[in-house]
């Protein structure tokens, strides 16, 4: 369940009420960032938005790590094929 999409904080609208304006591909909405109050939210941060609430800050480093892993996992197969081809060629 739970439609959640990444949005970028562009402005803190109301510090006391924890309201921030986020941007999703040019679409803007004021959301509540109360659930992220302890971590603090600032313009430029990316947050996961669900039903008008920031649920979690999105960690760019972790995102990059995940993408690197995806590349590596895909590469495993390519490497194996290369290895297989090389060894096959050597064996023949």
């Amino acid at each position, binding site marked *: 369940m739970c439609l959640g999409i990444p949005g970028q904080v562009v402005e803190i609208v109301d510090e006391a009420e924890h309201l921030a304006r986020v941007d999703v*591909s*040019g*679409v803007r909405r004021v959301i509540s960032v109360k659930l992220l109050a302890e971590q603090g939210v600032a313009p430029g941060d990316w947050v996961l938005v669900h039903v008008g609430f920031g649920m979690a800050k999105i960690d760019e480093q972790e995102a990059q790590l995940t993408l690197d892993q995806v590349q590596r996992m895909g590469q495993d197969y390519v490497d194996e094929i290369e290895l297989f081809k090389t060894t096959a060629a050597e064996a023949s």
Partner: protein
Amino acid sequence: MTSERLTPSASQVPDPEDRTRLRVEEFRKRRPRLIDEVVTMAHGAGGKSSAALVDHVFVEAFRNPLLEQLGDGALLRLPSGERLVFSTDSFVVQPIDFPGGTIGDLAINGTVNDLAVSGAVPQWISVAFVLEEGFPIDRLRQLAADMRAAADAAGVQIVTGDTKVVPHGSADGLYITTAGVGVVPADRELSPAAVRPGDRLIVSGTIADHGMAVMLARGNLAIEADIESDTAPVNGLVEALLAAAPSTRWMRDATRGGLGTVCNELAQTVGLGVVIDEGLLPIDPTVLGCCDMLGIDPIYVANEGKFVAVVAAEEAEAAVAALRGLPGGAQAAVIGEVIAEPAGIVAMRTPFGGTRIVDMLVGDPLPRIC
């Protein structure tokens, strides 16, 4: 390539999943049933419920060969041999002003476009108003001016009309009904029967602009975005397309129910399959962002100045080039093609390399949380 139907009947298929799938497909191809006891908003959303209501109430009562085609307009042949297209449409949009247009623009463009995609050159329009007691005359004057401007832009004349007033509370501001007549040039033949596998699908521009603009203009979602309705006449684009691609076989304006519903109507009319390349769909990034935020699929969102055409493969490039040269056609694109199998089905090829089915819209598109 073969035109033979390869689809066997359900009982002949050994695999139980395939058997179920075929049974469902056979079931799905039937016209929708009308099961509701009262009219709901879904009956006006242009999807399956609308089709069911029209089939089981109106076609049932009015039955005749011209009506049964259920096109955007009726093709009428005069004793002289000349052909007219006659079409009508009602406009109840709320709010009556929205970014990119007003109910007045829509009322003219909607009927102009129905005539144009039926192959006619739109010429005369009638206008009927249902006004709510208390509606400001100034606003009405402004809307009338919008309509005049839209008519001038489309090259049509408003030649007759009617006005009714209902008590305060019996209508929401005003409703407009337009009807129109256009003349079909003597040498023009659009024929769904000519559609064949390999033909290309062209859309005249970005999709989902109007529906999202209006949804946001209602204000209850508190979403801010620069999205404008695409309301515009397409008769100029249609003429350019027909000149560049004389093979054009079929056209439909993708209004309520969106592109997805129109493609299903095509697949069912011609009994062939349609495959859309999701990656080729022209969509404004902001509109897409808005759809993502609300969990709405843009292929079911209404357009008011876009049409889909089926043209022979060899003329597709010229057709797109012709459209791109005109205002309102800059984003025109080939988005898919007609295939033999699976017949009657619209499939979407995702940029990710997967495939899915695009069914007709069920109900009204609503924002979702999950």
